């Protein structure tokens, strides 16, 4: 058993499952978004904000944001542990990524439920 404290789940299996589930959520969200934009060629502010008034749309979007954060974290954590050998560099990068993803997530919640 190989230990690593910066990986949240500590289990390769749960990371692996999470990576696949989040990929499916992101794929569905992207298809929906592209479809919506194609169906609304002359999109204006009222229609667009109307879409996000809907609770289902907010929940769907939040799910996609969380999926992005999880997917990006697992991927970038893996990249860091593959290619960044100096500990200070790797740890610094990992902390930077966690903070950035956290900020984006909170900001995303604010955008969805604020305004």
């Amino acid at each position, binding site marked *: *058993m*190989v230990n*690593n404290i910066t990986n949240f789940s500590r*289990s390769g*299996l749960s990371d*692996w499952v999470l990576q696949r589930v989040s990929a499916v959520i992101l794929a569905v969200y992207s298809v929906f978004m592209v479809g919506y934009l194609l169906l609304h060629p002359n999109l204006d502010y009222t229609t667009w904000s109307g879409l996000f008034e809907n609770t289902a749309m907010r929940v769907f979007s939040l799910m996609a944001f969380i999926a992005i954060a999880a997917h990006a974290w697992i991927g970038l954590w*893996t990249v860091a*542990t593959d290619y960044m050998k100096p500990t200070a560099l790797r740890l610094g990068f990992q902390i930077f990524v966690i903070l950035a993803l956290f900020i984006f997530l909170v900001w995303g919640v604010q955008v969805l439920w604020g305004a």
Partner: protein
Amino acid sequence: MLQVSIYRYNPETDSAPYMQEFQVDTQGRDLMVLNVMEMLKEQDSSLAYRRSCREGVCGSDGMNMNGKNGLTCVTALSEVVKDNKLVLRPLPGLPVVRDLVVDMSLFYKQYERIQPYLLNDTPAPAIERLQSPEDRDKLDGLYECILCACCSTACPSFWWNPDKFVGPSGLLQAYRFLADSRDTATEERLSELDDPFSVFRCRGIMNCVAVCPKGLNPTRAIGKIRELLLANAT
């Protein structure tokens, strides 16, 4: 005349590795790469490489021939030579002891880690543990591994984390014991593999499958381990 370029490095006398050029007269024959190396050894007796069985059984002469890992004794010149040139390098990613001889300690450490022997906590029968022909068939494609390390040293995940990722060869062997009906330690074996490195560093690039001189498929075995882990944990 075949142009041969060989990686040379003697840590006692050389400050850095270099490539040495040789010319070999094969008289138009399609020799095995190992035959060519023996001819070179006559030209320069200081050249160091490992070999033993010369028939693809012992696994000691794995090296990188024109960019692809393989056993020199079962690789014909016609399979690797391009533009009349042959470039020989040690297996990538492992420390070089001298010339084409690499230090396989990390590779063996990973092999040792997966406990490559039967573990069985039931009382031993008087003669031997029996296995049905069907259960025996499940070991085909697994037990044939000769530990040549061609696969693990072709795997980028093993290059970056040879101390943490078991590597294709070790994982093929891990599955060989997980799949054996006479082994009762499945749970313990799986719990040793569930971390983010040991198995899950495999990115499915299949370099291992492309180079295995015994035609084995470590990627498939790794997929089976993943299935077992999933079935065990959900």
